[in-house]
C-alpha cells in the first residue's frame, strides 16, 4: 500500500481554463447555429436523403456514445478487477464517460426530425425496439456512473463502491451490446444484420474510449502542471494496443463471413474493393492510419516511453474510429437494397444504384458541437469537483518500484 494517500484536487481557475472554455464555446455556438438552421429549414439543408438516412451526425453521435462506455473501462479495471494502479483514475474515467455520452446523445437528439418531441421518446416505449431499449440503457448508464462517482468521492457511501463499480461495468457492456444491435437487428441490410455487431461495438468502445481517455488525461495533467508518470501511461499504452488488435480481429471475422456468404458478396466487394471513398476510408483510414500506425507507434522499441508517440497513437485510433463508423454507417447505406436477388433493378428512385451522400457543413458543425460539449463538461467537471489526483507520478502510483 502506498505510504502517501492519493489526494484529489480541483483544477485552478487559470487563464488556460478560461481560454479552453472560450475555444470550446465557439464550437458549441457553431453547433447550436447548425441545429437551429436545420431545425428551421428542415433536413433538406443537410446531406441526408431518403436513401442515406443516417449521416455525419450519426457518425459523431455513435462514436461518442460508443467511446463513452469505453472511457469507463479505466475505472472498471480498478474497481472490478481490483487493479490498484487504475483506481486513482476512476473518478475521471466516469466523468469522461458521462460527458461523452451526453455529447453524443445531444447530437443524436438534435438531428431528429422532431427534436421537440424528445418527451415522446421518453414516455412512449415500444419494447420490441432496440432503440427504445437504448434510451433506457443511456439513462441508466448516466445514473450508474453518477452513483459510481459518488461512492468514490463520499466516504459515507464508500461501502457501495464495489457494488456501484460492478453495476456500472455490467451496464456498460449491455449498453454497447444495445448500440451494436441497432445495426445487428436490421434484417434488410446485408452489411448489418449480424450478431457480431454487438461484440464488435464493445471492443470498438474499449479502443475509442481508452484513446480519448489517454488524451484527456495527458492534457489535463500537462495544462494544470501536475505530474503524470510513465508507469500509468505505459499501462494504458499496452492496453490500447490490445484493444486495437481486438477490433481488427472482429473486423476480420465480420468481413470474412461476408465474403464467404454469396448473398453478402456484393456489399463486401463494394466496401473492400469497389466503393471509392468508402474503400479508401476502410483501408487507409481505418486499417492503415487507424490501426496499424497506432500499433507501430506503440510497439516500436525506439519509441518506448515516448509520450508523443502514445498521444499520436491515441489520436490516430480516434481518427480510425471515425473512419470505421463512417464506413459502417454511410458505406452500409450507400450500397443499394436487394429487392430481387440475382437481378438488376432500376427505377426513377435510385433502385439498384449506389446511393450518394455528401455531408453538409451543418452536419459537421453539429457533430463537432457534440464533441465540444463533452469536452466542456470534462473541463468544468475537473474544475468544480475533485476528479483529478494531485499527482500520478511513478512514485505515487507504484511506490514499490
Amino acid at each position, binding site marked *: 500500500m502506498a505510504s502517501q494517500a492519493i489526494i484529489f484536487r480541483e483544477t485552478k481557475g487559470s487563464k488556460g481554463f478560461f481560454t479552453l472554455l472560450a475555444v470550446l464555446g465557439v464550437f458549441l455556438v457553431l453547433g447550436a447555429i447548425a441545429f437551429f438552421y436545420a431545425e428551421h*429549414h*428542415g*433536413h*433538406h439543408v443537410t446531406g*441526408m*436523403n*431518403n*436513401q*442515406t*438516412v*443516417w449521416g455525419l451526425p450519426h457518425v459523431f453521435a455513435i462514436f461518442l456514445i460508443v467511446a463513452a462506455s469505453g472511457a469507463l473501462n479505466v475505472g472498471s479495471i480498478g474497481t472490478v478487477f481490483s487493479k490498484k494502479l487504475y483506481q486513482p483514475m476512476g473518478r475521471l474515467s466516469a466523468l469522461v464517460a458521462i460527458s461523452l455520452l451526453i455529447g453524443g446523445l445531444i447530437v443524436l437528439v438534435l438531428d*431528429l*426530425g*422532431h*427534436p421537440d*418531441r*424528445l418527451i*415522446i*421518446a421518453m414516455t*412512449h*416505449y*415500444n419494447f*420490441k*425496439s*432496440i*432503440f*427504445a431499449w*437504448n*434510451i433506457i440503457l443511456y439513462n441508466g448508464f448516466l445514473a450508474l456512473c453518477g452513483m459510481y462517482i459518488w461512492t468514490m468521492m463520499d466516504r459515507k457511501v464508500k461501502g457501495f463502491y464495489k457494488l456501484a463499480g460492478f453495476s456500472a461495468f455490467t451496464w456498460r457492456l449491455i449498453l454497447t451490446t444495445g448500440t451494436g444491435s*441497432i445495426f445487428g*437487428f*436490421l*434484417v*434488410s*441490410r446485408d452489411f448489418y444484420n449480424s450478431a457480431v455487431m454487438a461484440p464488435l461495438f464493445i471492443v470498438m468502445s474499449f479502443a475509442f474510449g481508452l484513446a480519448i481517455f489517454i488524451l484527456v488525461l495527458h492534457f489535463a495533467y500537462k495544462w494544470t502542471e501536475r505530474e503524470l508518470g510513465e508507469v500509468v501511461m505505459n499501462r494504458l499504452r499496452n492496453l490500447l494496443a490490445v484493444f486495437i488488435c481486438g477490433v481488427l480481429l472482429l473486423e476480420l471475422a465480420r468481413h470474412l463471413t461476408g465474403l464467404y456468404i454469396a448473398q453478402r458478396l456484393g456489399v463486401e466487394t463494394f466496401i473492400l474493393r469497389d466503393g471509392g471513398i468508402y474503400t479508401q476510408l476502410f483501408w487507409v483510414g481505418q486499417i492503415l492510419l487507424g490501426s496499424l500506425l497506432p500499433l507501430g507507434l506503440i510497439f516500436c522499441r525506439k519509441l518506448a516511453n515516448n509520450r508523443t508517440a502514445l498521444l499520436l497513437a491515441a489520436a490516430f485510433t480516434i481518427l480510425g474510429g471515425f473512419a470505421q463508423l463512417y464506413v459502417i454507417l454511410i458505406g452500409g*447505406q450507400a450500397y443499394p*437494397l*436487394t*429487392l*430481387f*436477388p*440475382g*437481378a*438488376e*433493378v*432500376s*427505377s*426513377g*428512385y*435510385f*433502385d439498384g444504384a449506389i*446511393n*450518394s451522400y455528401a455531408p453538409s457543413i451543418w452536419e459537421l458543425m453539429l457533430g463537432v458541437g457534440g464533441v465540444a460539449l463533452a469536452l466542456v463538461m470534462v473541463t468544468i467537471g475537473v474544475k468544480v469537483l475533485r476528479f483529478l489526483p494531485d499527482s500520478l507520478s511513478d512514485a505515487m502510483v507504484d511506490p514499490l518500484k
Partner: protein
Amino acid sequence: MSQNRVDEYRRKFVMALGGTAAAVTVAQGFILREANAAGEVSSRPLDKAVTSDKRWGMLIDVTKLTDGGAGMVEACKKEHGWGNEADSDEAQKTHWARVVKVTDKLTKNSFSLPVMCQHCEQPPCVDVCPTGASMKRADGIVQVNKHLCIGCRYCMMACPYKARSFVHEALHDQKPYSPRGMGTVEACNMCIHRIDNGQLPACVEAAPDAVIFGDLNDPNSTLSKTLKDIGGKQIRADLNLNTGVRYHGI
C-alpha cells in the same frame, strides 16, 4: 317569423342534407359491395373500431399492367400530394410508390412493377420504431402515427423495400385527408382514409383490371380465391415478412 323558427328550419334542412348523404354512405357501407374487377371494400361503420377479422391486401397482376404501374403511382401522388417538395433534391423528395424495372442477370428476362409499402404481417419498421409511431393497425395496414414520430429514421433503415420517405422541408396545403409534415416519416398507408370510408385505394381504382383489393382473411373473397388460383409472390419472400401486397407475374 322569429329567429328561433328560422334556426329550426335551417337545422331541419341541414339534417335532411346530412340524412341524404348519410343514407348514401350507409348504402355504400352496410351492404358489402359485390366483387367488381378491383375487389371488395370495407363495410365497417365509422364509429366502430377496426378488428383483426379482416386483413386488407392486394394482388397486382404485373402482366396486365401495360405501363408497369406508372398510372398507379400517379394516382397515389395525386391522392396524397407527395413528391412535389420544392426545396428537396431528387434524392430527398418523398416517394410513396415507384416503378421498378427488374432484369434477371442471367436470363435477361425483364418486367416492371410498382413498389410501395408491402404491408407486412411482421413489419421490420414497426419492430424497430422506438416510440411505437410506426404501427400496424388491426386490419393489417402499416402506417406512421405522425403524432408520435420523432423523425429518427430507424424505420427507413429497417425497411427492405425502401418504402418510407422522410419529409425534408415544411409543407403547406396538404390534403385534408392525408396529413403530411416536416420532420416525420411517411409511406403508403393503403389509402386508409378511403378504406375506412368504404372506397378502394387510389392506385387500385387507377388500375382496376390489373389489381384486386380485398380481405386476405376471408377465403371467399375474390382476392383470396384469385391468389389460390393463380398465386401471388412476395418481394423478398426470403425475409418471411408475409406481405399484404402480392404480385403475379414477377
